[in-house]
């Protein structure tokens, strides 16, 4: 498939953003490939009710 894009004049007054997070992109310009992924996990077993014991130590510290 062939596709032709003609970019005309682009002029923006102001951009106001509160937050950009989790693999998001604000790009003022051109690009070719963006591969963006974000996974977020809050399953039932992530709710713990235990005495005050820390998580097991390791790579996250």
């Amino acid at each position, binding site marked *: *498939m*062939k*596709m*032709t*894009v*003609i*970019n*005309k*004049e*682009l*002029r*923006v*007054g*102001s*951009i*106001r*953003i*509160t*937050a*950009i*997070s*989790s*693999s*998001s*992109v*604000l*790009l*003022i*310009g*051109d*690009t*070719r*490939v*963006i*591969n*963006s*992924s*974000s*996974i*977020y*996990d*809050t399953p039932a077993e*992530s*709710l*713990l*009710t*235990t*005495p*005050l014991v*820390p*998580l*097991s*130590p*390791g*790579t*996250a*510290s």
Partner: protein
Amino acid sequence: MKRHVLVDNVYIINISNSSACICGESGHIDAYTRALAVQRQVPVFFEDEGNYEDYSIFSRFIPGWQLPSEVELDIINEYKTIHVECLDVTATASSSVVQLGSNDTMELESRVKAIRHFITDAPQELKDYVGVIVRQSP
């Protein structure tokens, strides 16, 4: 030929957690972040706690697009400049990118595991404590 970018004013307060702010052109951006977000009933945390290998979210495969695309793209830039007068960003986090300028490829990945931890034997003064306590591991 890619377009030029002209931005008159930029205000950014915070850039964190594998995020980037780039003024100008770039070839490839690779940003990766992983995080354990622990909310505890009492605000006590230990210096070396948390092990990413304990949770499958940090190792599982994320499917992506198959490249190259079959689309044959022809881009004609009649104007050579993108003009923005003012850009105001409060915060960026978790492998995000703010770029003023052109890019070729980007790979962004963030993995976050949220844990809510209720404490069964917490003394009342800890439950009422306002602030964060970081301790050495027991």
